[in-house]
């Protein structure tokens, strides 16, 4: 295996850009959340720090940084620190396989806008997502607090339960695409209309999309599935004992997750960086500009989905825990299975 310095530099650059971008978007996602909440509750929201409160996330971050770091006396210190670190790590790891844009073909070579095009990209996402529960669980357990423990156990069981339905819903989609590589999946959704039908998977797997979306809500611990941190039952949830930047990591990881999963949803179901008439656009602009347009398209889609998440959060009431479990095991999994069978039948006898 030969190490290519230029290759490494290129990848490192890409990684840092993506990381910083994700962090920035996550930051403003907190702002957006508050704004959306304000709009929906017919109030103003943050409006002091900067124009329309645009500096509010920075202020929050600074506040968290400068707050006193408290590690509970009876906690398991190492794991207590490891928890938020893992949460953050798994949150950002997913971004590695997302194709942010088409390859930029220049005279010097091809620059890929994807950190790693591995042929099992979706499985990688799954692996990382399934690891995501460790952060929550370890943190909750290490806090040595009953409420933390309970909520972390809730989070873990919720995550495991919904992972199943999520996987099954994706299996149906993978049967359509025939590939596990995200880049290939995106390229199959090239454009918007291939002459016969929509190219985007959303139109091919609507049921799968809804199941996936529901599961994404649960995985992200967002309302109406925010049982792990439901204040009325468990005080503050698994990060009750956390303070300062460790708490910030947890909260931040959630918003990064929100962003990344929105990106993944956009990639899987809404064509990723593809947009209608992209061929015409590609022909008329330079490759770099075209790549930028593509990235922006993807980001737009992701932001739309984030907003959708937020609307839902402030619209629907929270489930009860048994309802949550019943929904996962008795509704979504059978539904996903049925979807899978139907898809298989269609592929076998209709499409050929």
């Amino acid at each position, binding site marked *: *295996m030969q190490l290519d310095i230029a290759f490494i530099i290129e990848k490192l650059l890409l990684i840092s850009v993506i990381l910083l971008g994700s962090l920035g978007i996550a930051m403003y996602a907190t702002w957006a959340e508050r704004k959306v909440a304000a709009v929906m509750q017919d109030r103003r929201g943050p409006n002091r720090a900067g124009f329309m409160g645009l500096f509010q996330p920075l202020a929050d971050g600074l506040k968290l940084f400068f707050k006193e770091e408290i590690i509970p006396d009876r906690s398991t210190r190492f*794991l207590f620190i490891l928890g938020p670190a893992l949460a953050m790590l798994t949150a950002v790891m997913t971004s590695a396989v997302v194709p942010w844009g088409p390859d930029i073909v220049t005279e010097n070579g091809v620059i890929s806008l994807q950190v790693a095009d591995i042929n099992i990209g979706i499985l990688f996402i799954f692996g990382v997502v399934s690891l995501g529960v*460790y952060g929550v669980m*370890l943190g909750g357990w290490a806090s040595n607090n009953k409420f933390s423990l309970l909520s972390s156990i809730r989070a873990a069981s919720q995550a495991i339960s919904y992972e199943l339905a999520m996987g099954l819903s994706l299996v149906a989609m993978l049967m359509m695409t025939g590939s596990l590589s995200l880049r290939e999946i995106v390229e199959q959704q090239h454009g918007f209309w291939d002459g016969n039908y929509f190219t985007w998977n959303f139109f091919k797997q609507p049921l799968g999309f809804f199941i996936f979306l529901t599961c994404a809500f649960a995985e992200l611990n967002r309302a109406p599935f925010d049982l792990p941190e439901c204040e009325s039952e468990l005080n503050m949830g698994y990060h009750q004992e956390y303070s300062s930047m460790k708490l910030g990591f947890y909260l931040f990881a959630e918003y990064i997750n929100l962003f990344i999963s929105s990106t993944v949803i956009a990639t899987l179901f809404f064509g990723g960086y593809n947009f209608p008439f992209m061929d015409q656009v590609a022909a008329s602009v330079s490759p770099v500009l075209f790549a930028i347009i593509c990235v922006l398209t993807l980001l737009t889609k992701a932001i739309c989905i984030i907003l959708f998440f937020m609307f839902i959060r402030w619209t629907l009431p929270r489930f009860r825990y048994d309802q949550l479990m019943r929904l996962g095991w008795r509704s979504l999994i059978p539904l996903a299975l049925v979807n899978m069978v139907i898809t298989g039948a269609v592929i076998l006898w209709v499409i050929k």
Partner: protein
Amino acid sequence: MGVYEIIFWFLTVMALSCALGVILSRNPVNSVLFLIATFFAISGHYILLNAQFLAIVNIIVYAGAIMVLFLFVIMLMNLNADTEPQKNRLVQIAGAVSGGTLLLVILAALRTSTITTLDQTSTDIGLIKNLGKTLFTQFVLPFEISSVLFLSAMIGAVVIGRKETEKEA
């Protein structure tokens, strides 16, 4: 020593030390974490051996599901280091010595075997396409049987774990 060797030795050391951590750490949670790390190291080896699919499946199944269950159970029981009574020294030494003896014996037995070097060129047998073909043609019957096994294990687990109602007791 190329990158391949460096990664190999790194993963090997990591696997062995984490495996030792599993059995030596007194806190069950630490054991679980060490085991997860071991699985990661093993997955890394899989990737080195061109078995990417297995590597990721290993992570999903073991790290993502099985170990979560372990952690889950441990947390449910709130097991700490002090909850496990220590075996007496003699038993531990006996265990270690016998295990080591087995290791030594087999190592000595295999020491003289002919050395086959694995080539580092990547093969595509680990690709999901090839695996799928093998699984659904040659091994389709074991596959179906394993699904039955899964089902029965699931039912068994549910039945065992069910809370006994007053009627049954």
